């Protein structure tokens, strides 16, 4: 048996990059995809076999929006626990946000995250750097130094860049080295609430975050970027209005990409009705028309990719009063079946298209040309999916250090069987 060769046998290959869906085998040699197609056994008689009959074989998932809390809040999540959660959810590449304590706003901080991730060595962890120093929105952080140290892009996520002047400079500056700006769109003067501004918020007596908070900053950025044309990505789209702005911008040929989360594809703000803080996140859950608009936008390509915004918090954090509890929910370990429920089961897209939005498209946005497809020569990052397996979401079984999911107890369909990174099996489902 050759340990440097892995042969995944009898699966259904889903290669979104080629639009390919066929029964076959996949051979990984020395960490790279060596061949895919029917009857590879003869070609690699010594390879370690992995029989996955009845399963899909797809490129490893890529989540360009997670929070691993290291450094500074290791009681919520570490790069180790986050990586374990990632591979359990089928993700082989994740991009962690810069809102740690302190913020990732220098090249040494970027190197720290990369070093920790290499030590853990389960999942490719790529840090975003902050756009502004300490994410305070005032001065540009050392963007180019961070870029050269390995920052995948830049974001002050958790907050938007409030100043139009600072945002314009950031777009102009990253254009110099073709960097990526990923914006949390939330106009600060319109914000300050703790759930969607809606009849439900009025009923509950909770301060609202209006859809306009997201749309105003997005519209502003699109105007600013019209003349700059930097790479600009919209995080966690939540409103029908934001979808429409992105749709129009794409029609006009502007460089904009966008992501949406599982919870914004499935839940509405009605879920906040019992003051359960597991439904408190930012952007907040919106109305049914917003959910529909987000689903449609994924189907028609307005929203390019899916991202969990995995945001771990302790039970103590979430046990606080609704207006005081922190925003955020975990998502890595439940992403696949929830996306499938929102998008595939409802007939909006098929499995191949779902894989495109979880692999090929984020790889393209992030300029990671060595992954996101099953092409020969790419990294041997592969996920094996059992599309029919039904299971009940039980936070007690999470690998993540945190349990704050809004989907506790939900019956879902579709599970990760194996996650393979660089030809090495990094996750095997309990049977």
């Amino acid at each position, binding site marked *: 048996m050759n340990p440097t060769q892995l042969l995944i046998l009898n699966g259904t290959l889903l290669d979104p990059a080629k639009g390919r869906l066929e029964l076959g085998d996949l051979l990984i040699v020395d960490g790279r995809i060596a061949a895919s197609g029917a009857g590879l056994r003869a070609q690699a008689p010594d390879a370690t076999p992995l029989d996955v009959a009845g399963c899909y074989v797809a490129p490893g998932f890529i989540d360009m929006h997670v929070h691993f809390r290291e450094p500074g809040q290791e009681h919520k999540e570490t790069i180790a626990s986050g990586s374990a959660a990632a591979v359990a959810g089928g993700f082989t590449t994740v991009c962690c946000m810069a809102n740690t304590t302190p913020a990732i706003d220098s090249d040494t901080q970027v190197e720290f995250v990369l070093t920790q991730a290499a030590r853990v060595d389960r999942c490719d962890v790529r840090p975003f750097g902050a756009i502004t120093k300490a994410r305070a929105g005032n001065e540009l952080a050392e963007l180019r130094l961070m870029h050269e140290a390995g920052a995948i892009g830049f974001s002050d996520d958790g907050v938007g860049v409030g100043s139009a002047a600072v945002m314009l400079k950031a777009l102009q500056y990253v254009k110099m080295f073709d960097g990526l700006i990923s914006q949390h769109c939330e106009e600060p003067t319109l914000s300050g609430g703790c759930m969607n501004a*809606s*009849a439900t918020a*009025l*009923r*509950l*007596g*909770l*301060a609202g975050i209006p859809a306009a908070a997201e749309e105003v900053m997005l519209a502003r950025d699109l105007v600013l970027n019209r003349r700059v044309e930097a790479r600009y990505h919209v995080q966690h789209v939540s409103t029908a209005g934001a979808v429409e702005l992105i749709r129009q911008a794409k029609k006009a040929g502007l460089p904009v990409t966008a992501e949406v989360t599982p919870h914004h594809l499935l839940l509405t703000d009605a879920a906040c009705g*019992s*003051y359960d803080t597991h439904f408190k996140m930012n952007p907040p859950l919106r109305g049914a028309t917003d959910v529909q608009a987000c689903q449609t936008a994924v189907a028609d390509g307005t929203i390019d990719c899916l991202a969990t915004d995995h945001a771990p918090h302790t039970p*103590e954090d979430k*046990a*606080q*009063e*609704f*207006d*005081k509890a922190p925003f955020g929910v975990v998502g890595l370990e439940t992403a696949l079946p929830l996306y499938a429920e929102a998008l595939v089961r409802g007939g909006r897209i098929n499995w191949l298209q779902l894989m495109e939005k979880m692999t090929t498209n984020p790889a393209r946005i992030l300029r990671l040309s060595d992954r996101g497809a099953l092409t020969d020569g790419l990294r041997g990052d592969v996920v094996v999916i059992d599309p029919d397996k039904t299971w009940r979401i039980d936070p007690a079984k999470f690998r993540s250090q945190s349990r704050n999911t809004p989907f506790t107890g939900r019956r879902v369909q579709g599970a990760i069987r194996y996650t393979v990174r660089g030809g090495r099996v990094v996750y095997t489902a309990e049977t």
Partner: protein
Amino acid sequence: MNTLPPAPERFIWNRSHLLGLEDLSAAEILAVLDTAGALREVSTRSIKKVPALRGKVVVNLFFEDSTRTRSSFRLAAQRMSADVLDFSVSTSSVSKGETLADTALNLEALGVDAIVIRHRSSGAPHAVARVVRCSVINAGDGGHEHPTQGLLDLFTIRQTFAPRGKKFSDLHVAIVGDIAHSRVARSNLWGLTRLGAKVTLVGPTTLCPDQFAGLGAEVSHCLDDVLPRVDVVNMLRVQFERLASAAFPSIREYSRYFGLDEARLKRCRPDVLVLHPGPMNRGLEITSAVADGPRSGILRQVNNGLAVRMAVLYLCIGANSFAAKEF
């Protein structure tokens, strides 16, 4: 101690908590009002005390400043012979970082029967009710509900209009002011609509959003239009901190359009009832001539509040262990 007045016939109450009026049925609301009606008589006696809650412990857990509601609950509990514990937040472990749930569990471990809670966060009483087994009574949570204020307003309205042969379904009530942030407005809205009254919410667009129309109320931004059509005007307190958020330009401009003075009172029906939850900003949302005039029910509200809170305490912690026929 005196003997007990007879309890009302209608007795539909199985709750140990009072978290809000939104969840209550019309029958439950009427059960409180009827119980309060019977208990009001206790306060007219020379010895203002009945033994209904003897041996029970009620804790006032107030995270926000309050004089009248706190005093009213305290006196209500005492008139029912309960022991009262006043929990002062500034001197407690809350200021040392204790969570709300821990505070409540510790109080429960002391053996209290009811926690009367006021908190600046909407939903805080609901969070407490999820972790304790004792009764939880909401004395005002953020901008959500203030159910005993709603009940005492309902009581005062019924007290005024029942002798004139009018039922709630015959009445039209205007609630005027900062509706968006008012827990009093919400409790009134739920209680009044549940009993069949018509409610119009009145205030500037920034403080009285049209979305309230989806919650069963009419919404108006013109007080002068509304006044001739209503039986009750409930004037909410102007909250000065809203000035900083630029919800309205000045006190002067606010009171010009949304203040109730004698000239405006003349637009009302002659038998209109004027309410205010207090504390009043005299000269701003209501002039002294109106507040102290013959149409005002404001001091009756305070008086009725005591009976309503006695009733709520009795129903939540006493009714199960005493014969329901007697207080």
